[in-house]
């Protein structure tokens, strides 16, 4: 059997495994634990220098409610959704269609266009910060959700198209040829045959893009300013200013901000099923 089950290994390896694993796990989770603990500490603890010790009393309810009552975090979360969801949908539609075209059709500039999509991923986006900001001001898109959405879609589509193109390329071509001989038009082939088969890829990209856009801090700070547009990543920093670094609130807000991507992952989980093309060909 590969890999060899740990129960069958020598006792030295077994003991080492049992000792090292919890330690590694603890170290790895330490920052998260730190934030979780901080978010339930009363402010007095932090003022008194009790950063890492046991909280003097449980202030979780209080902290988490004040995040919402005493700051604009509620708006920021809404703003994040307003940017992230349309970006995910827009990116997936564009990249699935582009990937289908690049994978299935043999037109002359096919490879060149494909390489353009690939090459786009190598441009460091920091270089583009100033031009993109200027452009968005010129276009009247600065500090609007739609502006953020459009630039996010533009930046995400490159990688997603590469991913979708390769995934579709790996599907059995005979499925498409067979449908073509049957007289099914290309849109219907896309909708009824390709789309159901690329569902795992779409689910994976949805989680990836969602997490990436939700966690984006760079464009959020560059492209937005007002309370009605700022996503949560940029919004959290507001807590610093208002209460001279209220760490317990920043920690609570961070935990709240981290929840939607996790929820997204569990929602999409059942679509990551492998072996979807089973039975299509010989098998």
């Amino acid at each position, binding site marked *: 059997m590969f890999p060899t089950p740990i129960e069958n290994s020598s006792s030295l390896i077994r003991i080492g495994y049992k000792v090292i694993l919890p330690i590694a796990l603890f170290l790895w989770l330490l920052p998260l634990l730190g934030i979780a603990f901080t978010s339930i500490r009363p402010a007095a603890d932090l003022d008194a220098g009790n950063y890492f010790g046991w909280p003097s009393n449980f202030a979780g309810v209080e902290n988490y409610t004040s995040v919402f009552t005493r700051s604009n975090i509620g708006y920021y979360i809404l703003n994040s959704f307003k940017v992230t969801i349309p970006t995910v949908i827009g990116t997936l539609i564009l990249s699935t269609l582009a990937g289908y075209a690049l994978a299935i059709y043999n037109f002359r500039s096919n490879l060149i266009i494909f390489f353009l999509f690939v090459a786009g991923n190598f441009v460091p986006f920091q270089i583009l910060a100033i031009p993109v900001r200027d452009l968005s001001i010129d276009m009247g898109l600065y500090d609007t959700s739609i502006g953020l959405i459009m630039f996010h879609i533009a930046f995400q589509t490159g990688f997603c198209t590469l991913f979708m193109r390769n995934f579709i390329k790996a599907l059995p071509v*005979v499925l498409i040829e067979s*449908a073509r001989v049957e007289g099914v038009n290309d849109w219907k082939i896309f909708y009824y045959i390709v789309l159901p088969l690329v569902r795992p890829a779409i689910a994976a990209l949805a989680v990836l893009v969602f997490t990436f856009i939700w966690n984006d801090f760079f464009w959020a700070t560059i492209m937005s300013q007002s309370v009605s547009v700022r996503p949560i990543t940029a919004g959290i920093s507001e807590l610093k200013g208002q209460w001279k670094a209220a760490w317990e609130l920043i920690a609570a807000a961070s935990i709240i901000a981290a929840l939607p991507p996790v929820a997204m992952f569990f929602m999409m989980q059942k679509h990551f099923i492998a072996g979807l093309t089973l039975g*299509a060909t010989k098998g």
Partner: protein
Amino acid sequence: MAKVELQDVRKSFGTHEVIKGIDLEIPDGAFCVFVGPSGCGKSTLLRMIAGLEHTTAGTIMIGGKDVTIVQPAKRGVAMVFQSYALYPNMTVAENITFGLRMTNQSKATTEKKLSDAALILKLDRLLDRKPAQLSGGQRQRVAIGRAIVREPGVFLFDEPLSNLDAALRVEMRTEISRLHAELDSTMIYVTHDQIEAMTMADVIVVLNAGRIEQVGSPLELYHNPNSLFVAQFMGSPKMNTFAVELSDYGHRKTKVDLPNGGFIVVDGSERLSGPAVLGVRPEHITIDTKGELKGEVVLSERLGPETMLHVDVGETEPVIVKEDGLNKLSRGDQCALKIEADACHLFASEGQTIRSGSLLD
């Protein structure tokens, strides 16, 4: 039901010419088999007829209409692929009716055609299953069902049975033959298996490196091959061949000197002297103490009704002799082989036939 005509059809991938000028006429309602070794261009030719490959030069006509640049869907053909190509996300019923539903056929016709096809192919109990829940033979039947409901003029099969196990292959072979008799459509069937070709075809087209070697009925090709290639390709076990020397025997007869000293005399050879290749099928050699070829049995394959004796006569390959199943000879036994002179084929060293050993009338 449609006639298929190919006129000087050619296909190149880049600069690599794969189909090198094919002229062929397949009569309406025929069961035509393209057979040839792997890589000779059978699939490519079939895909060109289907419209899945662009035709580099030449004309393809189906049912009297020039379809060389017509879309696959508009050619009136249905294709069954080697790998079945079932849509994994759809049930059997959905798979079979997919094309009909997508081309806006009425619900009543779709249902009717589905139930007819399911009945013919014995799929009625499997209609709600997904392809993953079917056996290989059942999957192939679904693929055929999908072709049947389109009621095409021409069925195209690309090695449909090569993924099935031997027993199932024999069963499906008869089933496809029955289907041909029932539907009365033209069928073009690609295979590299000469047994499939022999058993199913009305017309066999032997392809070799992008060219037609010979066209004919199964027995014509078997008994009257016009080249060494066809002679060796058709028939299992393969025809035995020997490098021989011809000399004039008088009275328009030819003396054929066998490799180890003996000779036989044949008539009707186009050439009377020089080097040649002698071809004899295993059933035209018998064990006979007065035989011309002496040798030693190196292997006896007992098939039951008959036994294939492999006899080493000092050539690079042993001679295969088809003997009765009760034959007692086994490995190590000495024997002499008698060659039936009438059934001997002679081929020039370039490969074309110079004497046919046909026993057909």
